[in-house]
């Protein structure tokens, strides 16, 4: 199994763990992730303005590069996944935007949303299969009670993201079960951590993260996993020290279970 891979800028810097463990695990699972050449930053957020063109072109370039390689595009960072997926949807379904974007880029062939963007979790669920993953586990995380934190970007808008039921998702929980851990049921798993507002109003972000942390702890989790560097940051740095649970990238647990964590 070979896929194009879009790591995104954070994974090259502050979130290197998210990337490193994903690559190690993929190798163990027989999945080849080939990083796109010359990818650019997705911009971190998809502008909801339909007349915003330029800020979305970097994503379209990445999508087109994968198309030219004839491969599905794997993402890992929740934000990149959300941006690429929404840009792809706009290229496929918003005729006006698609026309303008193609006019700007003058590609060899117009891009119309042909590339399939899949998140690493979807790769595990739909391509590798959680059953196969379960078999590949060498150090099951038996007895570990983990809270799967989706945040906003993996699931919403569900009409575009299409990863799972946006209100009652199970992909991360199933993942946790596959590596032997025990997922915790908690309602705040799909509520916002405060996100980029940390740059504008740290207090606001802190409040949101605290509510998330609070609920995970209250429902008996001993750690939280996420796929988003910003969620990790907010939950780790923007919550009260007392009662703060460890926050990990899901790939770290995956690597641990597969026995490839260094």
């Amino acid at each position, binding site marked *: 199994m070979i896929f194009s891979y879009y790591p*995104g*800028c*954070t994974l090259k*810097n*502050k*979130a290197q763990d998210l990337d490193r463990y994903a690559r190690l695990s993929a190798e163990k699972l027989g999945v080849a992730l080939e990083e796109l050449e010359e990818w650019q*930053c997705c*911009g*971190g*957020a998809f*502008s*909801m*303005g*339909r*007349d*915003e063109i330029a*800020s979305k072109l970097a994503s379209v370039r990445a999508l087109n590069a994968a198309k030219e390689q004839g491969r599905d595009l794997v993402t890992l*960072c929740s*934000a990149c996944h959300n941006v690429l997926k929404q840009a792809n949807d706009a290229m496929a379904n918003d005729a006006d935007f698609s026309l303008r974007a193609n006019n700007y880029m003058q590609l060899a062939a117009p891009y119309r949303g042909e590339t399939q963007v899949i998140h690493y979790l979807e790769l595990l669920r739909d391509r590798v299969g959680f059953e196969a993953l379960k078999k590949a586990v060498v150090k099951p995380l038996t007895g570990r009670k983990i809270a799967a934190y989706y945040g*906003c970007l993996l*699931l*919403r*808008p*569900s009409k575009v993201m299409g990863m799972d039921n*946006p*209100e009652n998702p199970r992909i991360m929980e199933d993942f946790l079960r596959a590596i032997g851990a025990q997922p915790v049921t908690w309602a705040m798993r799909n*509520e*916002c951590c*405060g*996100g*980029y*507002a*940390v*740059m*504008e*109003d740290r207090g*606001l972000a802190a409040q*949101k993260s605290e509510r998330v942390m609070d609920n995970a702890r209250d429902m008996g989790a001993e750690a939280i996993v996420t796929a*988003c*560097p*910003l969620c*990790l*940051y907010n939950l*780790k*740095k923007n919550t009260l020290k007392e009662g703060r649970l460890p926050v990990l990238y899901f790939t770290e647990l995956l690597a641990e279970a597969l026995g490839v964590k260094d």
Partner: protein
Amino acid sequence: MNKFDKEQILHTSGVNVLKCMRCGKCSATCPSYDEMEYHPHQFVYMVEKGDIEKLMASKSIYKCLSCYACVERCPRGVEPAKVVEAVRLQVIRRQGANHLTPDDIPALLDEDLPQQAIVTAMRKYSK
């Protein structure tokens, strides 16, 4: 009421504000509610009325977290977050109206702050 502003916001957001049935679920689900002067349902309603200037002058436009909770949970598919974003774009697209500038960034950094936060904030708060 500035007719042009309203039309521009409807165009940028792509939202049909007339679909709103005034249930308030967007505001019920909004995580930033307490920080906002005008709330998601008010954005939809005030744009419908053409009451745009109050929205543009309000700090509420910088409090939306783009978490899509209102978009996902609106029973009528109105997508209030897109209206908020369109009003904010209307403001920051004007000359010198950036809410965050590169000069502000260094003071906000710490050793763990992910790049994602910086680029997202720049995208959301400035042009």
